């Protein structure tokens, strides 16, 4: 079933702003996903990771002003006609949405939702589309798929609905799968199952994957490369193992160290709060929360600099990073 030519994704200097450009939310983000590669985008709420993901499919709200370029293979996605974009959306790039409770049409039977994807982009008759839909539903782990295909979304649990959304995404046989926090709305046990499913299907179909998550541990298990976003910018990007075990940006390190560990004392946090969109500084946005920050950090924009093989960081104090005491204890009020 795998499509012959897996195309890579290139995001170049992507900017997204609201209020006629007055409120930038994504600022010059560039990264590349090789064909068949899994790329993770990590960051807090409001860091711009979801918008970055949605911009690939042109699914931003109408008020958003977009700049830069997104290329799929050799096509620039922002320059496509409406018809071409429809074609890309349905047959090359698919998206798994964050909240399975709202992303399924409540009045369509789930089997019809999946079959519709197949029918709308390929010339197949209804019965064949339905058969294929049931087959795909089986592949995403829905038992007794032919019977369950006649159910409505409200008869399904969150995890099952997410499987339906994944089935819909797969039905168009995409070369690139976008997953925008696909497990955030699910409980932990279901989460693991969904992630394993996405991971397995990606390998089977040799799709590229852009996985967006606020949870760096989810990305760590599934992606070859990872980008860390803060205040609308990439602050670090590189191979997952390197970023995870040798982070080259104080924010990444803080993020990793504030992961909960079992049996260890109180949970560590990063002091302070990220800046609000609209008040992102030109200089290092993390400086106010960073123990390494100097006057230089607050003076001018910090460029992304190479810190290893295909590994970049937006920090000028990389050399002092290993020695720093970064994460504070939480204030007990």
């Amino acid at each position: 079933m795998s499509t012959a030519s897996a195309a890579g994704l290139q995001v170049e200097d992507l900017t997204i702003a609201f209020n006629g450009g007055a409120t930038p939310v994504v600022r010059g983000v560039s990264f590349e996903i090789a064909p068949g590669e899994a790329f993770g985008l990590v960051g807090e709420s409001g860091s711009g990771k979801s918008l970055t993901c949605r911009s690939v499919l042109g699914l931003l709200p109408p008020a958003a002003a977009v700049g830069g370029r997104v290329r799929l293979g050799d096509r620039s996605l922002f320059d496509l006609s409406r018809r071409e974009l429809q074609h890309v959306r349905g047959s090359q790039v698919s998206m798994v949405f964050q909240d399975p409770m709202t992303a399924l049409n409540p009045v369509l039977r789930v089997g019809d939702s999946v079959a519709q994807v197949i029918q709308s982009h390929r010339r197949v008759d209804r019965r064949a589309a339905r058969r294929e839909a049931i087959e795909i539903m089986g592949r995403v782990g829905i038992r007794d798929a032919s019977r369950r295909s006649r159910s409505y979304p409200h008869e399904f649990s969150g995890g099952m609905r997410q499987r339906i959304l994944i089935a819909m995404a797969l039905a168009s046989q995409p070369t690139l799968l976008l997953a925008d926090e696909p497990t955030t709305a699910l409980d932990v046990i279901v989460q693991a199952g969904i992630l394993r499913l996405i991971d397995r299907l990606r390998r089977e179909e040799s799709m590229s994957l852009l996985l967006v998550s606020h949870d760096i541990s989810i990305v760590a298990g599934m992606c070859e490369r990872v980008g860390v976003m803060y205040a609308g910018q990439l602050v670090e990007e590189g191979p997952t193992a390197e970023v995870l075990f040798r982070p080259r940006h104080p924010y990444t390190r803080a993020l990793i160290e504030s992961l909960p560990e079992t049996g260890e004392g109180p949970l560590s946090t990063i002091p302070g709060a990220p800046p609000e969109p609209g008040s992102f500084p030109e200089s290092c946005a993390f400086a106010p929360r960073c123990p390494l920050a100097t006057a230089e950090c607050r003076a001018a924009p910090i460029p992304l600099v190479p810190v290893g093989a295909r590994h970049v960081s937006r920090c000028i104090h990389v050399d002092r990073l290993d020695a720093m005491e970064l994460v504070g204890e939480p204030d007990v009020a």
Partner: protein
Amino acid sequence: MSDYAVKLPVTGARAAWRFASSPGWSRRIGVTGVSLLVLIAVFAPLIAPYKSDEQDLATGLHGPTWHHLFGTDQLGQDVFSRVIYASRIDLQIGIIGVTIPFVIGTIVGLFAGYYGGWLDAVIGRIVDIFTAFPFLVLVIAIVAMLGPGLRNLYIAIAVVSWVAYARIVRGETLSAKRREYVVAAHGLGYSGLRIMFRHVLPNVIAPAIVFSMSDFVLDIVAGASLGFFGLGVQPPQAEWGVMIADGRNFITTAPWLVFFPGLAIVIVGFFFSLLGDGLADYIRRVDR
């Protein structure tokens, strides 16, 4: 979309049955009452003891008796039979008066809400113009221009009352088009028409259906009013409004001439309102 056209009536029938058999007294009374009214209209020739225009001048202006349950009018016509026969015309006015504006208004509202921009602005202004006039005044004005008769009444109702449906559906569409499953439908590369009719429409139609129940009553009242003014159904055809108009000269001596047709209008209004209320309740419950 052809597939949808085939499936819609089946789904509709199933949904209607599920609604009719769901508990709730107002709902049951409404469903039963409206079904009865429809049966009466369909089987009018079997129920009515006399023909609607059967005259017997010898027995004119008699009060209710066992022979003439609702009495007779000045021409000796059986009021009971005429009220029964009139239900055919009046329900027809309701059905046609709802269906045409419903379809037009829903489609217009869907386009306005979905595409927005100048299209929405233009449609919005047109809707405002129509809304500025009272419903009945506008209908009477249009019929007065086109000339009396049932066909012109339907045209007048269609011209005036589509705006109500357009407004309801537009509002619902505005909120529905931001919902995640509509965004997801865009993400799947569906065409605008497909998204509008398969993903938005089924999710915005319910309030319009609920409104159509009270609109039904409104149309019958409009039909009766125009009949009363001599602008609607023309005698000797039996229609409740015409019957009331004809009987008003005898209101002190033969009140049954206006009482029973008036009662019929009230009963229709009562049952359809219950049905509408029940429908609204039901939809709220299903939504949750």
